């Protein structure tokens, strides 16, 4: 079944398998540097710009061909905006994205359309991301027509092959989205993303709207497609266990910035940033005799329109509180947060820590003044 598909669809990249087996070699597929996305806050009758919501504020990472970068964080941390800005679905405020070494943000017109074929997205909500008035065949076939790849019978054959590849019966092409369950709709969304043989897909919370027993089916499908076609993923999710399972490398975001990044196993075994430690400790384990200590952070993620000074995490940070307990009064300051009073380190309130290499596996970076 899958052989038939790659025969039809892999019209321009027959060597997809070869790419998957050559990781880390040569240039990254995607190089994101200092990406910023600010949304203006407008006030008054003249819509004067009164400030900015710094949804993404200086994010950098690479994605290698055929590999997965997981992006985790709580709601409002900017992870979705990163995914959409990279694809230019939201205009960037600053920074650059290089795709196969070329400046993607500089592309215009025909050239942009050409390159967009290679970069696709799968959305969280399989209901709102499929047009209810189009048949499944038209939803999946439209990109093939728009990009002039196939029409008529050839298109229908390709649609059938794509449906078969994502585990649906090719005869479903004539049905409408409402006739399908959530898991099946997500498969349709994946088939649409695959239609143009992309080598990069942004997966924005692809399984969080699905039932537990369906999630693993979709994750396995995405995994198989990556192995088969050498697709690179930016995998955005808030479920840490899913991200660990699915990613080669993981970046943790907090309030528009990456606070820690490392190889997936390294990050989970040896977290360096206090936010990552607290986040991992907060995930309930499916174990009736929980072993880990749960750190309950105070308060909530602050608003990105008015972020805290210094390290944005300091109002909730257990580490700076612990350091403050050991330090002289001159180095500490009392703050009020979420209805509590706490003593924290002055440095954390005054200066923003850089993302720098920490002890541990190579490439393990974290932004914290007090971790080694």
């Amino acid at each position: 079944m899958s052989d038939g598909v790659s025969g039809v669809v892999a019209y321009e990249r027959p060597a997809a398998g070869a790419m998957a087996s050559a990781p880390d070699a040569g240039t990254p597929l995607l190089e994101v540097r200092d990406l910023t996305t600010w949304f203006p806050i407008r006030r008054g009758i003249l819509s004067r710009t009164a400030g900015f919501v710094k949804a993404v504020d200086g994010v950098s990472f690479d994605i290698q061909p055929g590999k997965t970068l997981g992006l985790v964080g709580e709601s409002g941390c900017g992870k979705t905006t990163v995914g959409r800005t990279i694809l230019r679905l939201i205009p960037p405020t600053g920074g650059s994205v290089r795709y196969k070494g070329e400046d993607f943000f500089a592309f215009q017109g025909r050239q942009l359309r050409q390159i967009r074929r290679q970069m696709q997205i799968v959305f969280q909500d399989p209901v709102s991301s499929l047009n209810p008035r189009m048949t499944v065949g038209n939803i999946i076939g439209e990109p093939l027509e728009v990009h002039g790849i196939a029409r008529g019978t050839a298109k229908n054959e390709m649609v059938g092959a794509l449906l078969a590849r994502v585990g649906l019966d090719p005869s479903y092409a004539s049905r409408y989205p409402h006739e399908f369950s959530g898991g099946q709709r997500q498969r349709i969304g994946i088939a649409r993303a695959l239609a143009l043989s992309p080598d990069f897909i942004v997966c924005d919370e692809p399984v969080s709207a699905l039932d537990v027993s369906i999630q693993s089916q979709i994750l396995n499908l995405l995994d198989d497609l990556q192995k088969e076609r050498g697709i690179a993923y930016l995998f955005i999710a808030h479920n840490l266990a899913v991200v660990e399972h699915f990613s080669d490398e993981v970046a943790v975001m907090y309030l528009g910035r990456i606070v820690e990044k490392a190889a997936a196993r390294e990050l989970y075994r040896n977290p360096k940033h206090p936010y990552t430690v607290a986040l991992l400790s907060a995930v309930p384990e499916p174990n009736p005799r929980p072993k880990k200590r749960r750190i309950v952070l105070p308060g909530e993620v602050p608003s990105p329109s008015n972020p805290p000074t210094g390290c944005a995490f300091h109002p909730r940070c257990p580490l700076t509180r612990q350091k403050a307990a050991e330090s002289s009064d001159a180095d500490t300051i009392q703050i009020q947060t979420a209805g509590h009073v706490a003593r924290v380190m002055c440095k954390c309130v005054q200066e923003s820590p850089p993302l720098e290499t920490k002890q541990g596996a190579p490439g393990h970076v974290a932004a914290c003044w007090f971790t080694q």
Partner: protein
Amino acid sequence: MPLPLLQVSNLNVGFETNRGLLRPVRDVSFSIYPGQTVALVGESGCGKSVTSLSILRLIPEPPGKVLGGQVLFEGRDLLKLHERDMRSVRGKDIAMIFQEPMTSLNPVYTIGDQIVEAVTLHQGVSQDQAYRIAEEALHDVGIADPHRRLSEYPHQMSGGMRQRVMIAMALSCRPKLLIADEPTTALDVTIQAQILELLRKLQRDRGMSILLITHDLGVVAENADVVNVMYASRIVEVATVEDLFDKPQHPYTEGLFRSVPKLGHEAERLLTISGTVPNPAKFPAGCKFHPRCPRTRELAGPRGAEEVVTVRAAEETAKVMKVCAQDEPLLHEVQSQHWAACHFAENYPKAPTTVPQLDHRRQVIAEVIDASGDIPLGTPVMQEIIE
């Protein structure tokens, strides 16, 4: 032996639709003892929410209808109560919180007005006293500056804060039973941890019972004393939280456990349950899990033609045991204090069909470190990252 606070027996609920009578809840029985947390776990459409709404008689009638059964709360059958008496049970003896706090908060009234309304209705106190009780309720759920918050509207608060307000409102009349329907599903992990810890603390302080409805196995494992697993309108497995996770007996429970990625576990590939959760309008005959069940397929493999049938399931056909496709299994006590509804659970044919009753409390409660205020010297919070 103490009596259960709530005992649900053979609850059956139907919905009249133009496709005929749907039965999202069938023969559901479980009990909750004072101070206990009992979980009802299952995926969408399994009937767990309809069950909880039926306890409070909140299903819309028509089209909904309780077809039979008993809901004994402190010895009284709630299904037989007069609507007027039922109103004094709702909110006072039994309170409910939901996944989405805006379903129970009115956007055009202040938080204070809404809590005070519930308090004056159930406790017959003066307006002033009611405001004091409301303020205390907000304080108890960890809301800073409760006096100011009373005059705010729901939209002025974040999701986690609204969840706390809803809990404060539900608990303002000191209910004996709290029904929590997916209380943390819409929340971020760090806020989820706050809310679950809050519920544990309130339960400890007040000896309240909780019916926890969720699909999250982690939340169940860390909070429940006793677990009921629901699939397609029926409870298919009942056990203490320890027994259920140590040795699940029903293939659906087993499948759920295996298909969830676990932190720190390396698995090349997730095991899956094939197919999808069935729609109540199209429940299969026999055991409702048979079209997806790996156990019956494995058993059917070497058996002769008279014992097996071929069924069409999802995108494939599969050979399954005839008995699974024809007879619906009931809950049997397949091990001591452990019930499962599967023809091929160990001992199933010989096991007794006792009514599940488990007055059990979990053995281990997760250790929690509160990082809100100062952290005293020597607290092992962040040892691993500073060495």
